């Protein structure tokens, strides 16, 4: 499978905003049924990379390919049409709308004859509940329930199930586990695995190394807009990855220096060190 043409590929993509280089020579290959974990500290250029992949930004230099053919996304809709779906933390779900209505926003199933077409609530609810349950979220059984009453993990699952239902081939998950508790995060990770099992290509953006290691096949660490490390599952240990994300500075050194600081400053940790831009 790994030898096939990548579903999505970036070749030496640069992105700059005016004089500021945000992404530098990014090359990535994403295969079907594979989870690519994109790791990086805040400000490493993760969001710019996602936005470039999902058509919000256009690369300044370099090229992007889908199934080996060169593509250019002028707007998010172009990327969506090619099957690239981006799911943000709570993006795409409306708390005060029902599960069924949420699922079909913008693509409502209707019944009846024009001009008396009505929203087919039963069909929408049935499909939505089935799609979510197929992803292993069995707690959602009532399509009339409002999404605001669901947990964060369930909302994520709904958004992912929705993207898959509407034909996504590449799923970009932007920090899906960031605001979740341990149990909820496990939920989302299970869904990522399910999406992978179904043959989707997943880009999983996170700064939680544990979560990345649970589902990832392939890892890329982003530092100051460039890929600092690109490796496959099992090639690095957790500590090595954490160190890489912190910008090469070993975590042990950092911990020692914080402890030392606290000893001399009545137990106060140092004011946040200037993070790498």
């Amino acid at each position, binding site marked *: 499978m790994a030898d096939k043409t990548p579903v999505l590929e970036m070749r030496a993509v640069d992105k700059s905003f005016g004089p500021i280089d945000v992404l530098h020579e990014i090359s990535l290959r994403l295969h079907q049924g594979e989870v690519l974990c994109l790791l990086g500290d805040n400000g490493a250029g993760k969001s710019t990379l996602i936005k470039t992949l999902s058509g919000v930004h256009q690369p300044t230099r370099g090229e992007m390919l889908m199934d080996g053919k060169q593509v250019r996304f002028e707007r998010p809709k172009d990327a969506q049409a090619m099957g690239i779906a981006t799911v943000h933390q709570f993006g795409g779900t409306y708390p*005060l709308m029902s599960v*069924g209505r949420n699922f079909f926003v913008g693509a409502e199933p209707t019944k009846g004859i024009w001009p008396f077409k009505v*929203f087919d609530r039963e069909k929408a609810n049935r499909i939505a509940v089935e799609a979510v349950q197929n992803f292993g979220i069995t707690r959602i059984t009532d399509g009339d329930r409002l999404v605001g*009453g669901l947990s964060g993990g369930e909302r994520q699952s709904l958004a992912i199930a929705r993207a898959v239902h509407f034909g996504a081939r590449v799923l970009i998950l932007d920090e899906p586990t960031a605001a979740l508790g341990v149990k909820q995060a496990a939920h989302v990770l299970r869904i990522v695995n399910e999406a992978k099992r179904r043959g989707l290509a997943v880009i999983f953006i996170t700064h939680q190394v544990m979560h990345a290691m649970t589902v990832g096949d392939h890892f890329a660490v982003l530092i100051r807009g460039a890929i600092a490390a690109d490796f496959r599952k099992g090639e690095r240990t957790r500590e090595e990855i954490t160190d890489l994300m912190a910008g090469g500075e070993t975590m042990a050194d950092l911990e020692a220096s914080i402890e030392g600081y606290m000893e001399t400053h009545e137990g106060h940790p140092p004011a946040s060190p200037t993070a790498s831009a």
Partner: protein
Amino acid sequence: MTDKSANTNNRPAASSAAAPASTGFSIGGLFRHPAVGAFMGMVLVFIFFSIFGYDRNFLTAFGTSSWVNAASTIGIIAIPIGFLMIAGELDISIGAVVPAAKMAMAISVGYYGLPFVAGLLITFAIAGAIGWVNGTIVTRTNVPSLIVTLATLFSVSGLTLFLSLLLTDTTSQAMPSPPWAKWLFGDYHFWGLQSSVFWWLFITGALYYVLHHSPWGNWIFALGGDKESARNAGIPVNRLKIGLFVLASTAAALSGVCEAVLSNSATTTTNFALIFNTIIAVVIGGVLLTGGFGTVAGIFFGTATLAIVQQGIGYTPFDRNLSSLIIGVMLLIAVLMNDTIRKMATSMSTSKKK
């Protein structure tokens, strides 16, 4: 991945196949319906005024028609305003659109002697244009719609006064209507009900369909819930918003036409009270101030409640001015209930295992 392959997925989903994903009618569900609060408020107010107004004929056909007629002129406009509020916007320019529509009718039909239908076309074209201007400015500039429509409120009222004086040299104008138009827009029918009452019922029905049963309703809720996500989902956000502003001004024009035909005349006076009345009706009707949630039934009951209090007070021994106090208190309760409504709605689940 298509619909079909999702269905043929081999995970054990059999348990869900047995139970329907939608719940049908249930008493419990009915009590949790978001419009119930507004309905209970209306019933309470009605009982109150029935008791204290019984001696003074509140319950007679005459007493009933007085509040139903008052409700209809507010209600025709309140539902489109409610739509805007659900979509996260507001329109206060309707206070000037109503007199503008009345004067447009009276000047074209009464002063220039144009056919009634021509007057209607001119009036609704003007109203539609005002709504289009409102919507376009709001979507293009992202200035809050309260400010944009405040500007159009004053502009339109100034323009109405100026043009009336320029064209006819008066600020009030008589207007005769042909019998069919009189019957359709401004006559008293059985029990003393005005034509506008039937328009109100018709608009309530039509807009109930739009909000709760047509795909557009889904778009309106999505727009108020999260504009960016709605845009990403492929909803023509700006066109939808402009459409809602046009709907609000044309509804205001309809209300104005009904009033002008009924009274056979029109004046340029800006109707500031109407602005407050429509907003009060919508809020008492349980529409969330933050957008994203509301029902047509709720707005309908909210309008009726407001009209019962405003008109009913005259049938009781209480001082007339107290009606504003009652409305103020009810409005406050409704706004405080907003949060409760939201919590109740999100925790609502009819799928509890028996």
